[in-house]
């Protein structure tokens, strides 16, 4: 997957987790949690959804890498390049 596809996947997962998520004016360099009002339980769902879809194991120590949309893409791009 390329950067754009990964970005779309993340947004799709977020909308899947929260039926009310408003992703229309999301700032891609700012923390997702603050902008979308996600708690740590919701955040875990993003990790688990990536695991289910792409068999990708993200260790807990790497969770901070998924803070913003930009950092998610940067972290996932090398890991999903063959997906």
């Amino acid at each position, binding site marked *: 997957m390329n950067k754009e596809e990964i970005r779309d996947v993340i947004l799709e997962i977020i909308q*899947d*987790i*929260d*039926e*009310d998520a408003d992703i229309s004016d999301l700032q891609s360099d700012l923390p997702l949690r603050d902008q979308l*009002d996600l*708690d740590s*339980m*919701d955040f*875990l*769902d993003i990790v*688990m*959804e990536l*695991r*289910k879809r792409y068999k990708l*194991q993200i*260790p*807990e120590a790497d969770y901070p890498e998924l803070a913003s949309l930009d950092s998610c893409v940067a972290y996932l791009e090398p890991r999903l390049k063959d997906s």
Partner: protein
Amino acid sequence: MVSYDHIIIGGGLSGLAAGIRLARFGFKVLILEQHSRPGGLNSYYYRQGRLFETGLHAMTNFADPGKKDAPLNRLFRQLKLSRKAFATLQQQQSTILFPGDRSLRFTNDPQVLIDEVARLFPESAERFRKLVDLVVGHDPFQPRPFASARKILTKELANETLADMLLWPLMMYGNSCEHDMDFDQFVIMFQSIFLEGFFRPEGTIKDFIDLLLNHYRDLGGEIRYLAPVKSVTQDAGRVRSVVLASGEELAAKFFLSTAGYPATLVFLGQDDPSRLDQYSGKMSFVELIYLIPSEIRSKLRAEDTIIFYNFDSPFDYCCPDEAVNVNCGVICFPENFQDLTIGNECQVRVTHPANYHHWKKLSQDEYYPMKSLWAKRSEAVVGKIIGNYSQNIVYQDSFTPITIERYTGKVNGAIYGSPEKIRDGRTSMSNLFVAGTDQGYLGIVGAMLSGVTMVNQHLLQTSEH
């Protein structure tokens, strides 16, 4: 041998919630339920072609769908169920009644209770407002040793009657200890009942359980009924498989027991009596269920959703010396929710603390007369509060600590489980965890959050899959 990623013991609400959470992320999950029907403490049965709910009087933790951080809405997100599609009905009002005609009314608007406290105890009004702030600012989920809610309330309110009146509904709705309550538990219950409030689903508990069950199955989860677990096999500090009463053996990588901590110790063979006693609750109840013609409601005091009454002085939440204590109890009108249409007949449900051992020792011949005797005694007391309804009963049923034990497996019929909670859900086996009543959260929303939380903490974030 058939092998799963996860086996969940118990198809009550915590087990179903845990199952949904695991199945949602593609794991192979099996729920084992000892009975022919799911739901555990919150289930249903049919009599005379009519569905009766067990357990459910009202759900706690009411929140509008828009309030994202409210426990109810977080729970729905975690289970990937639409909160907007789940129609809820809020309570009318509830009342706490104490000796000397003292009464406090509350609704799902916390201001009503604040005003009521100011009316009945003007000298304590300011202190009560400060207590509300203290509750709101307190994080009850930090691990801490038991702190006496009674002591903290006595200090904060300087008014023992008010403290007792506040404690009574919160204890009755989910306190497994006698006499006192853990302050963290008090805070959770205060938020759930006084600040968020009572509601019920628009449908029945059966509709709600079916919703969970269908969702679980759609996600690929399996459930087996009439499959009681007898023991587990162990190997080097891990559970390898569960053995059913039928002798069948089923393996999994991880196990979650919602059968209660004492029952879990029995599965593990760690069943020395003193240890079981330590984790066996003493609080059990009898419940009397009446059907009355709706037209007589106008002659009764029937505007509350729930009346929490206590005529004992001093007030003490405990296992009674006699078989039942009718001097205190809960009177519920299950039809009194906003926008609920009332049919030709309506229910009155009355719950009293009861002594398990008195009921346990009875022979079959003594058991039914004993139920009738205490029903009469209860009707005499409850009749004084809501008016006489005993002449108009169309149908009546009751359950005792023995009924609870038989249908839920709760030792001593203790619906709120062990007074000592296993907050972290861990057991002596590294791949066996407990969830549900004995892990700490209570009520329908609480039990489901327990299932979700234990799955999140122990079963999702592991590299062992």
